[in-house]
């Protein structure tokens, strides 16, 4: 540990409790960081691509998650190392921004780190490497734009969207029925999309799951499902053309916030109070009835008496509906959330064509379907599957597919998948490297090599000879000057043209992957001193 001395030879204390801290400096620090980053990337490497394997994660509470999604794996891992945490962040930000490609981005970063390690050993300064990477990433991103293709889709022609979603889903466990799931995702996104502004609010798509049934039974519901049943068992189970009052006030006697006491000291007071109480319930129900509501959805509970009165007046009601669901119902039915009975007016009621209760299996699980809403801009994807882990994994896969579809609506450029984009970028970066004078050239070349590692991992996971396959595809790309050749993961045949195999990825997804990976690697390279409290 380096110490500073003053002119009399006495040591300065620079760090508090310096002796108790471990400190790594210079090249040692960089190497330790790189190896940590690589270790994380190695875990994810086998999950890449359509033939990638899954990871089984057991949480501290013993719950089991089985997943193929990079972001989920990293989030559930109990990571302690600072650099490993950075990689986790990296995957998470890809998830937030794009939603897909969370594994790819980590593998890419791992490859960049591996290349950087070699350069460091040759004595190249880390900042020069970082700068070289930066230049190379710019070239790659530009090149991607160059090879990207726009495609047209409209409400009638959704085939390209479905194809892209299928590419995303094919790497998940749900690939058995990727076609129906992709169609469901696309339909869901299109029904909530604002094609004018090119924006999609994914909050309007609710993904619900219930165990049981088959994956094939997964369906898209143009409306909302609520995991609740009618408050009184004898209320009608089906309502046509419902007018819905959405309330956030309970059917209970009022509870003023200010502290107060109502003292009962005479018999008269006791009696008036009683009458008031009864009148109160009556008024509440009457209010709802007066405005013409045929269904009451309430965030709070009901008193027994109120419940019966509702039943009595033939006004079905649902209680204890969560805030988020309440909001979605309000959006879907075009109603307003009403906080007080006094403010209930006919205009504030939501409308739905059909509200029905549906029960599942042999247990008394019931769900409420609200369909044919006035505003069809809120939809629900209802997932069925053999077990809980399957449902969770399907939810994550659907989320990825939804994000991809949304990205395409925002920007309809695509690149071809199967590693073809990476290979093409690698060729372009390699060619550009020679034009740079200075040490950066090496870094740029290293970047090109790192880009190759994604298709290489893809090939390895698919059971192909990685180096052989990669070099064959690369030479084919250069020979025919066609950037669409990629790794034939699905063993379709000898033709490796990804355009014919319909393997698409979004342009922004790919660009974001390269940019994010480069940024993180730059950050890691710039660290030359790690100070951490030593083990106590």
């Amino acid at each position, binding site marked *: 540990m380096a110490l500073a001395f003053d002119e009399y030879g006495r040591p300065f204390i620079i760090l508090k409790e310096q002796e108790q801290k471990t400190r*790594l400096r210079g090249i040692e620090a960089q190497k330790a960081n790189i190896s*940590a980053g690589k*270790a*994380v990337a190695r875990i994810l490497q*086998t999950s890449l691509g359509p*033939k990638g*394997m*899954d*990871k*089984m994660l*057991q*949480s*501290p*509470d*013993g719950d*089991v998650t*089985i997943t193929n999604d990079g972001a989920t794996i990293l989030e*559930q*891992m*109990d*990571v*302690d*190392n600072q650099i490993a945490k950075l990689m986790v962040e990296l995957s998470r930000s890809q998830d937030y921004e794009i939603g897909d490609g969370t594994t790819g981005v980590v593998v890419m970063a791992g490859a960049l780190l591996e290349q950087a390690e070699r350069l460091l050993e040759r004595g190249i300064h880390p900042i020069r490497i970082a700068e070289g990477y930066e230049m190379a990433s710019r070239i790659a991103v530009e090149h991607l734009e160059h090879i990207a293709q726009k495609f047209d889709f409209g409400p009638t022609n959704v085939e390209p969207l479905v194809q892209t979603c299928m590419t995303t889903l094919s790497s998940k*466990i749900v690939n058995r029925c990727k076609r129906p799931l992709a169609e469901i995702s696309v339909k869901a996104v299109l029904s909530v999309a604002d094609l004018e502004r090119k924006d999609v609010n994914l909050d309007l798509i609710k993904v619900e799951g219930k*165990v*049981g*049934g088959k994956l094939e039974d997964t369906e898209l519901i143009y409306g909302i499902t609520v995991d609740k049943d009618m408050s009184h*068992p*004898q209320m009608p189970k089906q309502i046509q053309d419902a007018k819905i009052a959405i309330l956030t006030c309970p059917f209970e*006697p009022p509870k*003023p916030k200010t*502290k*107060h*006491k*109502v*003292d*009962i*000291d005479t*018999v008269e007071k*006791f*009696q008036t109070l009683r009458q*008031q*109480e*009864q009148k*109160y*319930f009556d008024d509440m129900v009457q209010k709802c009835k007066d405005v013409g509501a045929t269904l009451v959805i309430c965030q709070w509970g009901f008193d027994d008496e109120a*419940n*019966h009165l509702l*039943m*009595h007046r033939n006004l079905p009601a649902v209680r204890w509906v969560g805030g988020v669901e309440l909001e979605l119902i309000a959006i879907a039915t075009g109603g307003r959330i009403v906080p007080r009975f006094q403010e209930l007016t006919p205009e504030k009621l939501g409308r739905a064509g059909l509200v029905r209760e549906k029960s*599942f299996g*042999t*247990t*008394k*699980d019931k769900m409420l379907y609200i369909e044919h809403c006035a505003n069809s801009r809120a939809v629900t994807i209802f997932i069925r599957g*053999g*077990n*809980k882990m*399957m449902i969770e994994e399907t939810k994550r896969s659907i989320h990825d597919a939804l994000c991809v579809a949304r990205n395409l609506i925002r920007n309809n450029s695509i690149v071809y998948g199967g590693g073809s984009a990476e290979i093409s970028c690698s060729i372009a970066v390699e060619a550009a490297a020679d034009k740079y004078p200075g040490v950066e050239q090496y870094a740029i070349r290293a970047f090109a090599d790192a880009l190759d590692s994604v298709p290489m991992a893809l090939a390895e996971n698919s*059971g192909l000879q990685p180096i052989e396959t990669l070099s064959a595809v690369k030479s084919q790309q250069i020979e025919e000057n066609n950037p669409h050749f990629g790794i034939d993961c699905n063993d379709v045949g000898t033709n490796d043209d990804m355009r014919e195999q319909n393997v698409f990825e979004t342009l922004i997804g790919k660009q974001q992957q390269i940019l994010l990976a480069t940024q993180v690697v730059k950050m890691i390279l710039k660290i030359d001193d790690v100070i951490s409290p030593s083990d106590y």
Partner: protein
Amino acid sequence: MAIEKIFKDDATEEKGERARMSSFVGAIAITDLVKTTLGPKGMDKILQSTGRGHGVTVTNDGATILKSLHIDNPAAKVLIDISKVQDDEVGDGTTSVVVLAGELLREAEKLVASKIHPMTIISGYRMAAECARNALLQRVVDNKENAEKFKSDLMKIAKTTLSSKILSQDKEHFAQLAVEAVMRLKGSTNLEAIQIIKKPGGSLKDSFLDEGFILDKKIGLGQPKRIENAKILVANTAMDTDKVKIYGARVRVDSMSKVAEIEGAEKEKMREKVQKIIAHGINCFVNRQLIYNFPEELFADAGILAIEHADFDGIERLALVTGGEIASTFDNPESVKIGHCKLIEEIMIGEDKLIHFSGVEMGQACTIVLRGASHHVLDEAERSLHDALCVLSQTVNDTRVLLGGGWPEMVMAKEVDELARKTPGKKSHAIEAFSRALVAIPTIIADNAGLDSADLVAQLRAAHHTEGCNAGIDVISGSVGDMAELGISESFKVKQAVLLSATEAAEMILRVDEIITCAPRQREDRM
């Protein structure tokens, strides 16, 4: 510089072969555990809880066994989960689904050992599962049109389901009970309407189905014990002291006389309430909440039967059966729907007095009274009956029926074998393995019955070589028999669910190549 630890302390990571091995071992261990309960001659398990009293459960039901296990192996947890879902969804086949998934994994282990990639195995399994399902679809019998035949189908299914349980001695009797109960539901899957009351004493044979409704309550003192043409008001209201619900209200008085006055007013209020209830023109009043002595006395005076403290399910069921509504306010007697039944009487089962409502308006509901030697027997009988009821109610909705006794497995195995022969590439090994896993089920059934499984299964396979064969294992005589003649049937829906969820689970476990176990959360000591 050594590679630093990336995980927190105590977190473990298993990779590649090791991970796969640990899932296989876990899954196969679970399978071996429940394997011996499969089939009509399967054995039971005793489960002792770690909770207070060390309660003992004796059961043969796969889902119940697995639910009570504390498992640490993640792959085993997946299997437990599928068995639970099978229970919720179709109610039966909970053991079969675990055994099939376990056998699939056992076969997969061999394939992995001979260097076949898990992904190849998965795609083979998928093809095989699809093919097996189609094979079943081709051979299903659907007697939806013919009510008479359909009822006999139901009987057969009920008998087959019950034959593997404790009720197998009296399966004829119980199958009759279950079928009648389910037929009453008229197609709805709402098993709520079938009430099961357990009363120790007597023998299992004494169990009976009652078309009415039985409430496990006593009739209040001095009230009529028998009412004909009863008008019933079902209520959920406070009949103790009716509290003032307005927030913050409290009684504050300054003299004894005032207290007496208010008490009087309270009493008056209760009397008014009772008057209002009586004004409905009823002669039976059932409340979910307590009824205090004072109102009870008033009811007795009016000659009304008052029953207090019925449980919520009981109330709902009673309302459903009698066609009344659950009331909480009593101001408009003319518009409250009142339930009717022909006869209410107190009956005795064993030593307990119960209230029996017969001749109810809605014929949907019914009660099955189970009698048996001990609580354990009754609990197990209830579980078995529940399984049978679930399967039957599902079959009423999906009327397709298959033969049982290992017949469906052999049919599937045969088709899958054929597919294996036609498929080029490594996948065919996986497809073949799938068919072996299917054959394992009749093998286990035969083994559990103490029969020579190798011989029987070989005979069975030979028999299935002819077109349209109905051969299966006849456990009773220990030979290959005609399942159609023996009347052993199973519901298509159950078999399909077993096939699909087992394949799904096996696939899921096979895809895993790394297991990361986080450090168990430290329990906070609050001592």
